[in-house]
């Protein structure tokens, strides 16, 4: 009998998302209503094609991103977007009935805070501020613990991640080793927690994310002409050996390597664009599209945590897209570049 973590693709397009959980009837219904208020793709494309920042911002009037009065600097926009992001995260926490799922959200912020703090510490910079306040440890406690090098206040997973990241850094005094170590630990932690809570959806979600991260890593390593074989994360649906083999192939051999996987179109499109434009924009978009395609399969769930997690992801991405487009417009960036990122 095989274990669930073996690199076996036993699905056609998207992995399974698990059954309904009828405790979530009310929460799912609320989320379905809120989904209807998400910005349409047409609105985002119109914003990208708008003649100016003001014209792009005007398209948001009538939505929850409406800006009051004429805005000629980014400060108020950023403030509004941060407020919306805070609201959606608070909504997620209020709708989730299972604490381990909320803890997973908090862990995401803990790991991001930790990454920032360790980078600052090992490069002898002040611990400073700017930490997320959605982690399981408040920013104030976090700063204090880091300054005093007292990590006992942190959850166990964070203590272990710190240890691995610091050890990895001091092996070669390479700042990138911190990110690699934290990525590796975080992926392992997520898979372990998904098993513990018995969530088929989360397990599929995290394994897809590992695969997509590995695809990005593969193309970036090839672009930088680096052959570091130990950077691929284990635990995805695609075996690590396939990515390592990809390092030895030319760009034209990458798409066929993934022919028997659901990521064929993602790799093919991303590599073609990269070889023509020397840019990862399309790969990023295609990875995101695959992930969202998977999240959209949660529409078949009438009640369960799956649609709520998917909504959080959609909403956070929407906020990120609005920020990206408005920033690009304020800096006079070419619409074509924005469209390449958004997708035509």
């Amino acid at each position: 009998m095989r274990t669930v973590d073996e690199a076996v693709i036993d699905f056609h397009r998207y992995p399974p998302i698990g059954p309904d959980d009828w405790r979530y009837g009310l929460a799912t219904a609320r989320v379905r209503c809120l989904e209807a208020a998400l910005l349409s793709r047409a609105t985002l494309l119109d914003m990208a094609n708008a003649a100016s920042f003001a014209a792009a911002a005007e398209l948001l009037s009538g939505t929850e991103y409406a800006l009051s009065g004429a805005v000629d600097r980014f400060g108020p926009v950023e403030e509004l977007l941060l407020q919306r992001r805070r609201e959606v995260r608070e909504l997620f926490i209020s709708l989730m009935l299972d604490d381990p799922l909320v803890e997973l959200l908090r862990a995401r912020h803990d790991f991001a805070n930790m990454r920032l703090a360790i980078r600052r510490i090992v490069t002898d910079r002040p611990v400073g501020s700017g930490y997320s306040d959605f982690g399981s440890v408040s920013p104030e406690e976090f700063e204090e613990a880091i300054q005093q090098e007292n990590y006992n206040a942190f959850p166990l997973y964070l203590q272990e991640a710190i240890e691995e990241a610091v050890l990895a850094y001091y092996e070669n005094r390479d700042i990138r080793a911190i990110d690699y170590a934290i990525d590796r630990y975080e992926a392992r932690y997520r898979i372990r927690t998904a098993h513990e809570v018995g969530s088929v959806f989360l397990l599929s979600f995290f394994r897809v994310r590992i695969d997509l991260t590995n695809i990005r890593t593969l193309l970036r390593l090839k672009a930088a002409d680096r052959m570091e074989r130990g950077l691929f994360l284990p635990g995805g649906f695609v075996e690590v050996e396939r990515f390592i083999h990809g390092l030895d192939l030319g760009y034209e051999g990458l798409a066929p390597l993934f022919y028997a996987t659901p990521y064929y179109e993602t790799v093919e499109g991303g590599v073609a664009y990269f070889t023509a434009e020397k840019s990862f924009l399309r790969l990023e978009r295609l990875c995101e599209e695959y992930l969202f395609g998977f999240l959209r399969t949660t529409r078949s769930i009438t009640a369960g945590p799956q649609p709520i997690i998917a909504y959080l992801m959609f909403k956070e991405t929407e906020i990120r897209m609005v920020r990206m487009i408005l920033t690009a417009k304020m800096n006079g960036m070419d619409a074509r570049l924005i469209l390449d990122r958004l997708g035509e």
Partner: protein
Amino acid sequence: MAQIALGIAFLGAALAAFMAGIGSAVGIGIAGRSATGVLSEKPERYGQLFLQVVLPGTQGFYGFVIAFFAMGRIRAFGDGLDLVNALAIFSACLPIAFAGMLSAIHQGKTCAAGILMTAKRPEMAVKAGVLYAAMVEVYAVLGFLISLLILLQIQVPTTA
């Protein structure tokens, strides 16, 4: 023996009422939770959602009606109810008991899905939301009819 026969017959009537009733309660509970979630964001949809919430309640009524009929038959037999007729009354109650309970729960789930669709596409509330749930109802109606027909087939002794 007459007491045992009476007990079996009453057990049938009770099963028809409480199993179909349990199904309806669970079904309405499922649909009701979804409807409450939608109404918390869009209270103006109350009218559209009402029918989908109450639909799983019909099975409870079917069970009640069959239980009522069964008790009528038991009374018609009086002290002369034998084991064969008691088993016939018991059997007559089973179709609505099981079909009612299971169909009500599944109808509740179908209604919940319809309610979520109504939240996004209100114009589909009747076309898909109610109609699909009504298709589940068909099998509860069939169970009800069979229970009723069996009860009507049982020959009650006529008083001279």
